[in-house]
């Protein structure tokens, strides 16, 4: 090939550009080069700055993390130059209390000859609080003497629920329950034994002042459209309800009715031409949606996995097989005191059927049905649920190899189980329906925890106000407040 020399010539020029021997742009002036190489050399000079491929992706990931941090910093940075000065009856006891209840650290104290504390400083979080005993002759009187204090302290903490629990066990009282607020914080009031009130809060989503004002206006307007005295969680529901989506929704409804004796509570066709149904299985509800024969619904099935307590594991297992389910594990006694079986139904849902070998068919306090997630890694999912929904982890069993085999998560009054993916049990992104007192606040809190919006909260004609978010693991969470009994 006559062109070989051209490749060599071009590469010599490229080599000079890359090594910096040739100044970009001056290549055209070089003598002895094939005229049609000149534009290619010009391009090569421009390409000298071609970014490294992994850099763009790495920076994008960094920026995403940074933007999540701007969204939700549990304790906002607050340059503090003003310190509260508390006068209390028995400052020594108060310091002990603040240490126990709020994790305060004593910086120092000055004792008077009479034994009272003339001045003391403690640190809570990064802030200094000053305090002293009462000295009425110098105008220092405590709330106990005055019969109350108009002044409240505001305290940002990493985990307001845990903080409040600790404070209560040290003798504080909760005077306003910890709850999600429309302005993005999760907060409540704590009264200490010395007459002071502390507003304790964890920042959820960062909400602009403008947006808070807007929500305030919406909230002020809404009560007219709301029935008063409506329970935000409708009767028969728990905080968490799993929403299964199946191609043959009616087939799945029949399956849970025939196999588990579930009771059909509601069945309709939605605007998208798909089924929406609600069935009660023991003390829990399951929502089922998806396709029906002749319907126009088009979507992807969303099967999940459940742990179901039944009175007769063997009978349920047999009924499941008769109803077309595949056996994953035949009934067997387990060393942890349950007889269990595992099946997979025709819609792809896994059912761990269990009968507890105790006084009852389930252990005290267990719900009849619990969703069971199999994420690749449990930790980030749990972290998200804690931040987004205030979930609590009830106990974890981790194998020596670090794999989380089993853990229980509590959200509101509901339980969910989790075990990292193994064998046939692989991640199945699941749809959940949550009933909470204030869906707007929780929706924004979930976004603050890194979820993305599926739908902003709106009032629906079926009596719920709800919005939806999707977490980074693919689970969808519809967050609802029941506003009107139909």
């Amino acid at each position, binding site marked *: 090939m006559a062109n070989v020399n051209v490749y060599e010539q071009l590469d010599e020029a490229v080599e000079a550009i890359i090594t910096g021997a040739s100044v970009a742009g001056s290549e055209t002036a070089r003598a002895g080069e094939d005229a049609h190489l000149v534009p290619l050399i010009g391009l090569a000079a421009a*390409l000298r700055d071609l*970014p490294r491929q992994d850099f763009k992706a790495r920076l994008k990931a960094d920026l995403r993390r*940074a*933007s*999540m941090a701007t969204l939700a910093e549990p304790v906002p940075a607050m340059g503090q130059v003003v310190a509260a000065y508390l006068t209390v009856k028995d400052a020594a006891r108060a310091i002990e209390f603040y240490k126990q209840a709020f994790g305060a650290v004593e910086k120092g104290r000055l004792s008077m000859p009479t034994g009272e504390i003339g001045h003391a400083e403690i640190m809570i979080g990064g802030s200094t609080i000053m305090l002293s005993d009462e000295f009425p002759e110098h105008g220092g009187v405590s709330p106990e003497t005055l019969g109350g204090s108009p002044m409240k302290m505001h305290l940002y903490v990493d985990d307001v629920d845990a903080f409040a629990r600790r404070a209560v066990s040290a003798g504080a009282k909760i005077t306003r329950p910890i709850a999600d607020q429309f302005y993005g914080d999760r907060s409540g009031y704590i009264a200490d034994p010395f007459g002071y009130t502390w507003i304790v809060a964890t920042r959820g989503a960062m909400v602009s002042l403008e947006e808070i004002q807007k929500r305030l206006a919406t909230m002020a307007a809404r009560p007219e459209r709301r029935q008063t005295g409506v329970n935000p969680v409708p009767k028969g529901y728990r905080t968490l309800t799993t929403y299964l989506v199946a191609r043959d929704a009616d087939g799945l409804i029949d399956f849970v009715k025939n196999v588990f004796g579930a009771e059909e509570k509601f069945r309709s066709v939605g605007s998208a031409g798909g089924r929406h149904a609600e069935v009660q299985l023991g003390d829990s509800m399951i929502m089922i949606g998806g396709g029906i024969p002749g319907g126009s619904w088009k979507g992807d099935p969303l099967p999940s996995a459940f742990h179901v307590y039944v009175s007769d594991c063997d009978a349920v297992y047999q009924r499941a097989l008769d109803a077309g389910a595949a056996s994953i594990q035949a009934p067997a006694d387990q060393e942890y005191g349950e007889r269990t079986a595992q099946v997979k139904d025709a819609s792809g849902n896994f059912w761990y059927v269990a009968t507890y070998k105790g006084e009852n068919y389930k252990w005290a306090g267990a719900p009849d049905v619990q969703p069971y997630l199999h994420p690749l890694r449990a930790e980030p999912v749990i972290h998200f649920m804690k931040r987004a929904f205030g979930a609590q982890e009830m106990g974890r069993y981790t194998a020596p190899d670090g794999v989380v085999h089993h853990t229980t998560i509590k959200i509101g009054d509901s339980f969910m189980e989790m075990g990292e993916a193994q064998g046939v049990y692989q991640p199945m992104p699941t749809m959940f329906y949550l009933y909470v007192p204030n869906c707007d606040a929780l929706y924004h809190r979930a976004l603050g925890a890194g979820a993305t919006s599926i739908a902003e909260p709106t009032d629906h004609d079926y009596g719920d106000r709800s919005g939806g978010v999707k977490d980074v693991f693919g689970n969808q969470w519809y967050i609802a407040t029941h506003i009107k009994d139909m």
Partner: protein
Amino acid sequence: MVVKAPAAKGSRGEAEERLLVAAAQKDPLRFGELYEIHFEQIYAYISRRVGSRETAEDLTSEVFRRALTNLTRFEWRGVPFVGWLFRIAANAIVDEAKRSSKEVSDLEDPEEIAVAEVDIADAIHRARLFRLVEELPADQRRVVVLRFAEGKSIRQIAGEIGRSEGAVKQLQFRGLQNLRSQVEKKPGGKNG
């Protein structure tokens, strides 16, 4: 404003960009979309003005971080979003020059840092070229990326992709030739 014309030209429609900026101002997680659109332009602008790839990467990171932090302060006043990014980039370059106390021309009054139209046009042109590299046939793209972005020698590349040095040189030639014919097409395609 010097930056207005060239940046508005050849980038997305202003209305669309306004929506993206407004969305990101409300929800910082959507900043990624603006980043995707402007990454190459800012990188191209900076890399031409600094000595090393590492510095270019550091400064590009800094520009987008500053932009993310200050996003709510950005207002539409006839300057397109990318013009604002170029200003941040120009400032970041000056700051870096001060840090390394290198001599930089046109630095008498840092308050007056202007981003010249010709520099922006050049950055936008090269940014387009960087994106076109992604559309090259796989073997040509690999050689171009390894050679230019990673700065590898023909011999190293030959070893890495299991081809002869002559074949690598030929792929380099074909890649550049391919890019040339793409560049000469009118902008306004997928990336325009």
